[in-house]
C-alpha cells in the first residue's frame, strides 16, 4: 500500500479519527487508526467499540491495501512541513513508513485483518438540516452528565416525531431541552439515548455541511455527513421524563438583561468557586447577587429587577448558572423561580430552549 496526501488533509483526518480511537484500550488494535486505500479512495476508520468513525481522505492511491497505524501518526503528520506526505506499508510487514519533506518515520503497525468489523446501521435514514440539528445537540449536550456510574445521564435523549427532533440532557443538577426542525416524520416516533460524546464528536466532524443523515436502529445510531459517517452505540435504559421535571408554573417570572447578568456572575462568581454558591437575593425591585468564600472574602452587586412579593434568597452553582445564561440566545433572559429548594428555569426569547437548574441549599 502506498498513498500520497497533503499534510493538511491527512493531519485533519488523522486527528478526527485519533480522537475516537481509544487511548486506554484493553485491546491494542482499538488504539490504532485503520487506513484503507482502494481505487475508489482513501478512508480512515477508528473505533472504541462505542463510537466508530469512517472518514474519507483526499489522497492519491499508488498501491491499494490497508494498515493499522498508531495514534502517534497523527502527532507526527501534524508536525511535518507543509507539502505531500507519503505512507507506505508492505502487506504482512510489522512496520509502515511515513515520510514528508526531509523527515522519515518507521512506525510499528498492526495488520488491518485484525481490526474489528465496524457496525453498519441499516435502518432508514432521515435527512435533517445539519447546522440546526448539531447546534441544538451541542447546546443540550452540555447539560449531560460525565459520570459513567449513571450511564443514562451521559446521553442525550433524541426524539424524532412530527416535524421536530426534541433533545434532552440532564446531569441531575440541570436539564436542558431544545427542538430542531426535521422533515415530517409522518406517524413514526423514534426515541433513542445517544451518548453526548457522540454528538459532540459529530459537531466537530461537521464542517458547515448541508445535510445530516440520521438512522436510528435498536442499539446503534448512524450519522452521516457526505462520506463521513459516525456510528454510536445507543445507551440502554429509561431516560427521565423531562416533562414531569419541569414545573408548569413559576411564582416569579423575571426578565433580566443577559449581558448584564453575565457580567455580574463573572465578577461575583470569582468568589463562588469550589462548590460555594452564588446567592441571588430578591426583594422588591432589586436582585442582589453575592458570594462568600471564607478564606478570601465576599462580594455583592445589585441590579434592578421587576420582582414583587416576599423577599427570598436562592443559591446556585455559578458555573451551572452561567452556562445556562450563556446557552441562551437574545438580549433578555427569563428566570422562573418558585422557592429556594425548587428548580429555577432559564428561557431565552422566542425559542423553545429550556434550561432547568436545581439550587444549592443554603445553610442559612
Amino acid at each position: 500500500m502506498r498513498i500520497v496526501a497533503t499534510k493538511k488533509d491527512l493531519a485533519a483526518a488523522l486527528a478526527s479519527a485519533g480522537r475516537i480511537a481509544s487511548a486506554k484500550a484493553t485491546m491494542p488494535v482499538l488504539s490504532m487508526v485503520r487506513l484503507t486505500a482502494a481505487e475508489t479512495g482513501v478512508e480512515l476508520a477508528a473505533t472504541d467499540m462505542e463510537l466508530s468513525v469512517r472518514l474519507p481522505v483526499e489522497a492519491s492511491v499508488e498501491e491499494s491495501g490497508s494498515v493499522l497505524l498508531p495514534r502517534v501518526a497523527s502527532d507526527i503528520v501534524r508536525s511535518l512541513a507543509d507539502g505531500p506526505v507519503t505512507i507506505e506499508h508492505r502487506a504482512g510487514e510489522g512496520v509502515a513508513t511515513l515520510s514528508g519533506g526531509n523527515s522519515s518515520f518507521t512506525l510499528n503497525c498492526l495488520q488491518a485483518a485484525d481490526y474489528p468489523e465496524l457496525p453498519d446501521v441499516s435502518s432508514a435514514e432521515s435527512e435533517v438540516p445539519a447546522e440546526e440539528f448539531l447546534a441544538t445537540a451541542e447546546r443540550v449536550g452540555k447539560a449531560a452528565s460525565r459520570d459513567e456510574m449513571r450511564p443514562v445521564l451521559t446521553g442525550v435523549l433524541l426524539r424524532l416525531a412530527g416535524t421536530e427532533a426534541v433533545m434532552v440532557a440532564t446531569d441531575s443538577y440541570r436539564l436542558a431541552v431544545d427542538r430542531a426542525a426535521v422533515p415530517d416524520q409522518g406517524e413514526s416516533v423514534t426515541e433513542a439515548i445517544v451518548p453526548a460524546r457522540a454528538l459532540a464528536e459529530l459537531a466537530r466532524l461537521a464542517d458547515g455541511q448541508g445535510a445530516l443523515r440520521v438512522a436510528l436502529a435498536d442499539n446503534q445510531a448512524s450519522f452521516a455527513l457526505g462520506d463521513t459517517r459516525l456510528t454510536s452505540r445507543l445507551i440502554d435504559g429509561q431516560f427521565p421524563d423531562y416533562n414531569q421535571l419541569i414545573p408548569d408554573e413559576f411564582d416569579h417570572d423575571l426578565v433580566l438583561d443577559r449581558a448584564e447578568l453575565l457580567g455580574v456572575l463573572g465578577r461575583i462568581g470569582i468568589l463562588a468557586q469550589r462548590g460555594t454558591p452564588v446567592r441571588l437575593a430578591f426583594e422588591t425591585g432589586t436582585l442582589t447577587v453575592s458570594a462568600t468564600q471564607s478564606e478570601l472574602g465576599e462580594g455583592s452587586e445589585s441590579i434592578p429587577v421587576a420582582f414583587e412579593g416576599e423577599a427570598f434568597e436562592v443559591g446556585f452553582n455559578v458555573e451551572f448558572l452561567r452556562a445556562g445564561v450563556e446557552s441562551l440566545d437574545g438580549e433578555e433572559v427569563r428566570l422562573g423561580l418558585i422557592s429556594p429548594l425548587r428548580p429555577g428555569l432559564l428561557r431565552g426569547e422566542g425559542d423553545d430552549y429550556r434550561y432547568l437548574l436545581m439550587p444549592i441549599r443554603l445553610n442559612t
Partner: protein
Amino acid sequence: MSERPSILHADLDAFYASVEQLLRPELRGRPIAVGGGVVLAASYEAKRFGVSSGMAGGRARELCPDLTFVKGRFSDYQRLGDEVMDILGAYTPAMQRISIDEAFLDVGGSRRLFGEPDAIARAIRARVRDEVGLPISIGAATTQHLAKIASQVAKPDGLVVVPPGGEREFLDPLPVGLVWGVGPATASRLAADGITTIGQLARSSRADLAPLVGGQVGSKLHALANNDDPRQVRSAGRGRSVGAQSALGRVIPTDQVLGEVLGHLADRVAARLRAARRAGRTVTVRVRFRGLRSVTRSLTLDEPVASTLTLREVAEQLARAALADHPDEREVTLLAISVSNLDDQPEVQLELPVARDDPHRQSSPTGAARLALDRSVDSVRERFGRTSVGYATPALSKRALVPDEFRELAEREVRPGQSAGRGEERDG
C-alpha cells in the same frame, strides 16, 4: 515533650454544684447534690460526708442528712462552661476542651504575651473567679497526664506546678488511683499485688502487670506512671469527632433495643453536628459486651452525614454487623456512636429526581428532605425545648434514665476504632 511545664489542665471544681451555689446564694456553704434518684454531682461540702457522683440518692441522704437536692439547670451549665472556655482560649489557641468543665492548654507559645505558665495559670484562676464566679483548679506540668494529676492534687480551688526534674518526686507518693485509666477495680487488683502508689507502679515491670490488668492496659499504665505521655494538646477549638454513648446495664440487643438506643444517640449526635454546622463522613459504632469487652465498627460514606435518620440507619447496620461477628455475646452493656472525618456542612447542590434516590446522600431528593425535616425539628426544639418533638421510636422509649441535657453535658467524644474500620479492645 516540652522542657518547661507549659501544659495546663484546668478543671472547674464540683462544676454543677458550684454553678447552683453561684446562682442560688442561699445554697452556698451547704452540702448539695444535683440530681434526685442518682447524685449527678455533689458540692465539696457534701463530698466531705462521702457523697459522690453516681451514688444512689437514698445512700447519699444516709451519709449526709442535711443534703439538699437540686434539679440541674443544664442551659446554665453550658453557658457558664462556655464562658470559662472563652477565658481559657484567650491565653492560647492550643486549647483542647475535653468536657464541659475541663480543658488542656499548651501555653508554651504564649510566654511573650502573657508570661510564664504559672503566671498564666494564676491569671486564669483570678479571671474565672472574678468574671464568672466559679472556682477552678489548675495543674501545670510537662505532659498532659501529669498536668491532669496536678490539677486533681490542686483541688479544691488551687494551683499545682510540677517543676521540670521534679516529676518523680511529685508522682511517686501519689495513689495509683490518680493515674488516667485506673478505676476502683483496677486499683484494687493492683493493691492486691502491693501496688498502691504511682512510684510502685512505675518501678514494677510490665511483665508483672500483665497478669493483673492485661498486657495492653499494663503497658499503658506503666508508661503513664513513668510520665511517658507523648500526646500533644490538639489545637483549634473544633473537635475531630462528635459522639454519644449510652450505658445500658445488661440488655439483650433486640432490634427494638438497637432502634431505640441508636435512634436516641443518633438524634443527639446529629443534632450537635447540625448545631455546629458540621457533617462527617465516617460513622463509628461501639458495642460493649459484658466484661468490658468492646468492639467497634466504622464505615466511611460517600457523602457527609448530619441527618438523624441517616445516621441511625448507618449505625444500626454497623451495630448488627458487630453483633453478627460475636454470636457468643448475648448481652450488651453500652452502645456508642461517633461521627468523624468532619468538615463544614457543605452547601448541598440539590438534584432533580432523575436517578436512584439514595436517602443517605444529602443531595438526593429524600436525603435533602431528611435534612430539611431535621432542621425543622431543630428549630421547633430551639423554641419549645428538646422534648417537644422527636422521632417516634426513641421518643416513645422509656429507656432514658438520666435527663438528656445532662448526658449531653457529660458526653465525651468517642474516637473511631482502628483505621481498618474494626477494632476490639478491653476497656481499662
